[in-house]
């Protein structure tokens, strides 16, 4: 009796995440995918065909096609937007890693009693709305903004900085916004490293800097991969940061998608853009899982 109840309880526990995925990912994805096979129309909703029971499922399916996909691949605008997004996201990820690693390292090496406070400080920006923080960056970066004023006061520059509305501003925005997502997994993996390992390395003749590359860095790789993934994936599809901080030359797929959807009202094409974006993003996820698999097999 109780065993049966237990079995049932276990089944619920296992089913819950799948149910969640089904309702909030698979079904919406299916809707978007179906939409991407439709054609744009001047109607409400602005696409065709719409399913109606009277015409039957066969007719409905026969009207679907991959026209939007061939269009996207044929137009360099879209291909460039994808490539440029991946490039911007990749560069931002590397920059974020470079900024986050010393911070995470410092946190992991700080006295144990400080660590919760430092962690708190890393998470603190989330108390403020993301949008407000990006607007704050506009105030900092614009030509008559705080940064220009500050540097001119110090006499370092004489001309206002031209950072606002450039790709540089987008990098700054992404690095700033996603920094905690990089720091936290890095800190988690650095904090786990037994300090005796570094002592052992030094004892065996390794200078501190070499010991870092031979011991600390390889052992922190799981954190590096996790952090990069957490930054890279949302950065590829980022819309708000390039829209607010970037310029006309900043080409990102998130912005393209927004334009198709809201400005051109081409829902099917926008859907196709989204589906391709999703496929592009599965590549790093698969790579990450392969890496985790290798780690598990080597029994880390």
């Amino acid at each position, binding site marked *: 009796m109780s065993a049966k109840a237990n079995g049932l309880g276990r089944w619920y526990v296992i089913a819950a995440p799948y149910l969640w995925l089904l309702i909030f990912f698979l079904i919406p994805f299916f809707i978007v995918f179906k939409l991407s096979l439709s054609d744009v129309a001047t109607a409400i909703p602005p696409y065709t065909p719409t399913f109606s029971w009277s015409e039957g499922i066969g007719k409905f399916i026969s009207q679907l096609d991959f026209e939007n996909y061939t269009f996207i691949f044929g137009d360099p605008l879209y291909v460039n937007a994808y490539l440029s997004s991946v490039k911007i996201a990749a560069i931002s990820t590397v920059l974020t890693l470079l900024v986050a690693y010393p911070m995470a390292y410092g946190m992991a090496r700080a006295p144990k009693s400080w660590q919760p406070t430092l962690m708190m400080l890393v998470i603190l920006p989330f108390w403020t709305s993301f949008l407000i923080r990006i607007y704050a960056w506009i105030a900092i970066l614009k030509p008559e903004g705080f940064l220009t004023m500050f540097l001119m006061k110090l006499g370092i520059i004489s001309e206002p900085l031209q950072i606002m509305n450039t790709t540089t501003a987008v990098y700054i925005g992404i690095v700033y916004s996603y920094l905690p997502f990089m720091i936290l997994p890095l800190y988690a993996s650095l904090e786990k490293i*037994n300090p*005796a*390992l570094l*002592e*052992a*390395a*030094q*004892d*065996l*003749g*390794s*200078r501190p800097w*070499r010991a870092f590359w*031979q*011991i600390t860095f*390889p*052992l922190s790789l799981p954190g590096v991969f996790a952090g990069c993934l957490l930054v890279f994936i949302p950065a590829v599809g980022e819309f708000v940061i390039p829209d607010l901080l970037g310029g006309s030359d900043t080409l990102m797929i998130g912005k393209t998608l927004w334009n198709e959807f809201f400005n051109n009202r081409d829902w099917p094409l926008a859907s196709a853009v989204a589906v391709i974006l999703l496929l592009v993003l599965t590549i790093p996820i698969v790579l990450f899982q392969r890496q985790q698999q290798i780690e598990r097999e*080597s*029994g*880390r």
Partner: protein
Amino acid sequence: MGVVTARDPQASNASSQRAGPRTAAPQSGFAPWKNPSLSPIVRFEGITKRFDDFVAVNDVTLDIYEKEFFALLGPSGCGKSTLLRMLAGFERPTQGKTIVAGQDITDLPPYQRPVNMMFQSYALFPHMTVEGNIGFGLRQEGMPKNLIAERVDEAMGMLELRQFAKRKPNQLSGGQQQRVALARAIAKKPRIVLLDEPLGALDKKLRQQAQFELMRIQETTGTTFIIVTHDQEEAMTVASRIAVMEKGVLVQVATPGDIYENPKTRYIAGFIGDVNVFEGTVSAIGDGCIEISAKDGYQFKTRSSEPVSVGQQVWLALRPEKIRIAHEQPASAVNAIPGKVEDIGYLGSISHYHVRTAPGERITALRANAAHTVERPISWEDGVWLDWPVDAGVVLTG
């Protein structure tokens, strides 16, 4: 009078059989510390280490000689590891100098010292294979690859690790990990190998096996080993000399036999093996012997190597195996007291007899269970006499 037993109650019985002097020790003729023409390989000169206000190591001066297997022994928190870590270079002494082979290394960083350490937690690099771990130190020197492979193979052969060469540390058992850690510490052929509780994580049986392995490696490589342990039996088994520490201070440095036979303080007497201690005052001094009036009213006659004066408070320490136990009052014994057997601990070849004396104290005596014993066996509740000669006990003043 009272019985001071070893700190570890479980080990105490077994230890008193084994913890005797190492008469047949392989190094019995080895005593460089007695040779004034030799200079020590390690010299601690007035080493003090303070952590804030806390004095972990207090003014330690100590010489250790080449090829010694030297043990630092003491209870938890007495500063053994701190002293060892100062030699490895992980801690800086607050005061004093560390000299290795005539060179002052007090300010050298760990990576420039001619010592290698085996850590208690082993500290094996989890992302490297057994081979990679053992060869790590050699790679730091920029040694050619084929030479490294040779040396790694040699170390693996010595510790029977060849079949695990390609495994990662977490695919090894505790005993195998311990051997990898040792192999890594000796692979660079350092002049001195430091071992901080190297066998602490092993179970008792594996531990004894590993102790002999340590001794074998130490002898075949001819390296100086300095081991930290809080297990007196382990120190007695492996060491050429033992330094007993208490609260950061060196209390006695001597061979295992000396420490057992002539402990300097009651603390050491009790720490190493079982011992009976009688408290009293010196009542007379003469002809190489002194007389002690024990608190319980007994009069004892004993030799004393310590200079004492009449009226001074002393303790007479007697090892259980130095006390004879018999049914009849011995005819011409110098020191003899009657009592009643309360408890017998049968340990195969020997038995412990716990005897209650008239003033109510418990004394432990030990007797071999030889098959040809003509006397009738001693059993519970028997009235017995305990006696010992003048040279059986040690007079302690502290």
